[in-house]
């Protein structure tokens, strides 16, 4: 399958700090990939650069062959990339249906809802994320696990081809994590390309077939989770220098 996202020599500096340093990788259509790295590695900054929330200092980000580096977030959404955030953000006092309907008003969302109408399209998305029975409820009274699903629903409202999930498991209970895992797997099986971060690795490493590891803004390696977990530099990044002596 073809390359959907090609990131080349991506660099982002904040003053004297290089948060992302000459970072390159590729994602193919239909891929299901994790981005890992210890706290402060630069994972969220990579997501912010791809989704337009930060402008790169240098380097290119090609989506479907077109350079999108430095475009505004809504333009990137219109091209087919949607994201969720580490901290849940909802329209607290609107119903879940209206929360999703807002993103269905995006260009791609309107195109996808042609014929059926925004409400029916938004309902179908709520059904896909398992929240359709709560369509009339506002997020303010929902548990955290449901709010996470809502974030994914809002992203899906823009009918993306590539979905970026930033730390989707953080702060969830075991049962909620399992629920969310099922949802993400279903979306992937339906053909969505998914790129997700996680600093708690138990869920992520057992979910995705491939991970990209980064540390201090730099690319370390790209491969199956088992291989990445045995890489000396990855181990050092997580456990500290000298960890290769561990069993």
């Amino acid at each position, binding site marked *: 399958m073809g390359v959907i996202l090609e990131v080349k020599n991506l660099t982002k500096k904040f003053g004297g700090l290089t948060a992302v340093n000459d970072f390159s990788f590729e994602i193919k259509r239909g891929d299901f990939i994790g981005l890992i790295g210890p706290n402060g590695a630069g994972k969220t900054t990579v997501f912010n650069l791809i989704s337009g929330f930060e402008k790169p200092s240098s380097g290119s980000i090609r989506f479907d062959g077109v350079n999108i580096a430095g475009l505004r977030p809504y333009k990137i959404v219109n091209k087919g990339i949607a994201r969720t955030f580490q901290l849940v953000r909802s329209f607290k006092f609107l119903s879940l249906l209206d929360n999703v309907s807002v993103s269905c008003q995006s260009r791609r969302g309107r195109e996808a809802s042609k014929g059926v109408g925004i409400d029916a399209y938004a309902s179908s998305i709520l059904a896909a994320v398992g929240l359709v029975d709560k369509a009339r409820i506002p997020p303010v009274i929902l548990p955290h696990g449901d709010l996470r699903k809502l974030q994914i629903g809002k992203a899906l409202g823009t009918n993306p081809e590539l979905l970026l999930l930033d730390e989707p498991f953080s702060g969830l209970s075991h049962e909620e994590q399992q629920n969310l895992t099922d949802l993400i797997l279903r979306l992937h099986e339906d053909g969505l390309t998914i790129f997700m971060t996680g600093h708690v690795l*138990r869920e992520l490493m*057992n979910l995705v077939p491939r991970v990209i590891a980064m540390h201090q803004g730099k690319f370390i390696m790209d491969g199956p*989770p088992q291989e990445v*977990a045995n890489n000396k530099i990855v181990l050092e990044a997580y*456990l*500290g*220098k000298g960890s290769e002596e*561990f069993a």
Partner: protein
Amino acid sequence: MKNLLEMKKIYHYYGKARALEEINLKIEEKALDAIIGPNGAGKSTLLRVISGLEEPDRGKIFFLGERIDGLKAHRITKKGISHCPERRRLFYDMTVEDNIKMGAYVQKDKAIYKKQLELMFELFPRLKERRKQRAGTLSGGEQQMLAIARSFMSNPKLLLLDEPSLGLAPKVKKAIFEAIEKIKSEGTTTLLVEQDAVLAMNVGENIHLLEEGKIEMRGTSEQLKKEPRIKKVYLGI
């Protein structure tokens, strides 16, 4: 050796998410123990529950044989537990010296204050040189030194150190950890939380491995280094 601190079946929740599950922990007097574990394992919560910044939902905590769970943080500080928080939390607009003084607000004895101050300046000569400078103008390593010095000024019986190596260059990490060992050798019981497992194992006598709120394993660093499970806990696979 007698136990300075004892935690019995401690549970703590943030909403529905369980942060700590059945924590049993004993810290002997004069020990230097370390809690290791990946991000989100509950390490900082464990320290916060001890120092009273969080009240445990269930379980008991004894300090010198006396129940302290449920007490307010300032009362626990007065009893002799000092908490050096993650990311330092200095008073950045105050001078180095004033930050240090703030740490001594429960220490009314001038003689002890002077002795502690001298010890800290001996341990961290950089802080002495910079004592009139605003804390916000210090480097990351110096700020960490100041945070440790501040928490030591109350002359604690138990010092809780949360991620003292966070964001520091290897050389600076080394200096900080030498200071921690020195503080220990002066007789202060220390409980250290560290993500850098190697650093923690180099100084810690007893290592407690935390995963998803539970103590999964404990032992000396020699014992734990032989355990393949540590890598699995950190890397999830």
